[in-house]
């Protein structure tokens, strides 16, 4: 079984791109399973189910979804093996732009969209910078020049990645993506001993633990103050 981790900012088109890509896998008789990670709510699993493939979803609730992802990925892999799929795809949203659920030696795909603004590539951290493949969506509604500028911006933060343009609505580019993200010779049996590509952010303060009151006396743990001084 090959494992592919897909992530990207919310609403960038991950699910649409994946559905079109999976359709191409199924046409070539490659079986696929999907596990969708999200925070509070998702019904994307319904869309995946329509493809007739095994699907699971995981809602992280009050936890950071990427932390939740890492603590569950081993079980997810076991599920994929049990389902006997050729390709297992995990999809998760990078909600804080700092996290990245990529694992060393496991194919990492980042999906971002042309509408998100040209400074976005700079704002997204390791999720974009350490991806193997960057998929750019929504190219059908912006101008050629904006696509070119956006692509250059992505390239300048991640020159190693293969950058692809995929239209999540028409599926243009999805066939090509399907030939890239799956390596038939790759077999993942366990993630035991593997490592994340980049550490997740350190954050542990009273608010992580459910504190709602505001004020210094309620702030415990890893607290940092904003610099509001006039001195430059």
């Amino acid at each position, binding site marked *: 079984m090959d494992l592919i981790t897909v992530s990207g900012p919310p609403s960038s088109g991950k699910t649409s791109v994946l559905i079109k890509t999976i359709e191409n896998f199924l*046409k070539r008789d490659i079986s696929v399973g999907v596990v969708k990670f999200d925070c509070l709510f998702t019904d994307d699993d319904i869309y995946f189910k329509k493809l007739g493939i095994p699907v699971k979803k995981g809602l992280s609730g009050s936890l950071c979804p990427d932390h939740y992802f890492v603590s569950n990925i081993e079980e997810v892999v076991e599920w994929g093996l049990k389902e006997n799929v050729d390709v297992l795809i995990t999809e998760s949203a990078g909600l804080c732009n*700092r996290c990245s659920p990529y694992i060393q030696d496991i194919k990492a795909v980042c999906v971002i969209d*042309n*509408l998100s*603004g*040209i400074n976005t*590539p*700079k704002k997204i*951290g*390791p999720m974009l*910078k*350490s991806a193997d493949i960057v998929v750019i969506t929504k*190219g*059908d*509604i*912006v*101008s*050629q*020049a*904006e696509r*070119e*500028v956006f*692509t*250059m*911006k*992505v*390239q*300048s*933060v*991640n*020159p*190693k990645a*293969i*950058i*692809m343009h995929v239209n999540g609505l*028409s599926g*243009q*580019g999805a*066939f*090509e993506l399907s*030939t*890239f993200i799956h390596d038939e010779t790759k077999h993942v049996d366990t993630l035991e001993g593997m490592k994340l590509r*980049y550490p997740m*952010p*350190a954050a542990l303060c009273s608010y992580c633990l459910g504190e709602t009151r505001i004020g210094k006396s309620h702030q415990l743990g890893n607290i940092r103050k904003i610099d509001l001084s006039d001195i430059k």
Partner: protein
Amino acid sequence: MSLENLLKLSIGDLFLKFPYTKDFFIDHLVPYKGHENYTINQLFNNMDEEVIEDNAINTELFISSLVEYIELMNSYFASEQVVENTVTIYPGTYKDGTDENFTKIEISKGEIISIVGPTGSGKSRLLADIEWAANEDTPTKRKVLINGRVLEPHERFSASNKLVAQLSQNMNFVMDLSVREFLDLHATSRMVENKEEMIIKIYDKANELAGEGFSEDTPITELSGGQSRALMIADTAILSKSPIILIDEIENAGIDRQKALELLISEDKIVLMSTHDPILALMGDKRIVINNGGIESVIETSEEERSILSKLENLDKTLMDMRNRLRLGKRLKFEEEL
């Protein structure tokens, strides 16, 4: 540039040698100001752990990416001279697997080709085959040669050397920039040498194509449909590196389509047009007819068809005039010669 040599350079020297690397430091949130005399390793060794963590800097990845970025940029400049002259399409199969019935289709720069066929017939697939320089590895099994040869994998999937630029009705400008700022940004990202000249050329051409002129200070999101289309076409013709321009229907309103096509041709582009507008289709040299996922035939535009073109253009002009009269609050009159 080898990794070894890179690590010997001071950051200041690196910026002098490869000016674009400065933006690379900025984009990766690596603070270098005041440390230009350091080498990269010295910079990271003297950097606060907290800064590295806060800016999510992966020092190893940063250095190896930098090497790759310099290589990429060098190849970008080097490939500037290569011109794609011809695209050759060899047959594949229809959706049902039967073979396409043509020997080969050759398209040269400066040619306009229309692509016609019902919705869902496979126009997009043909364009995607061209865009990806298919090598019998797409669902149609077509083979596409560029300048008579199969492209290497790194050429096919290079983001900075894309073969096809696209223009369509649905495209809009989304950036909050003025016309001038927008052109400046695009020219900068293309790293052209004669930036100022390019910007003026595009601006002038766009104004020529647009029915109504616009100023340099207009925000691009406030341009009318015709003005946007005119600016997109002029910008793509002059500044886009892609040798093939794919046009998905351009509407009639507010843009001189003939001039637009002439501009693209004069910039040595290959123009592929997906259209069912007879005026546009007849402006093309030939048209590719698609059905059931396959190329059914290639029709050369005949002399007779060309003679219809002028009549169609007159009809089109009459309609436009009527539209203008309506806009100005006048009454419409039926004219006999129509």
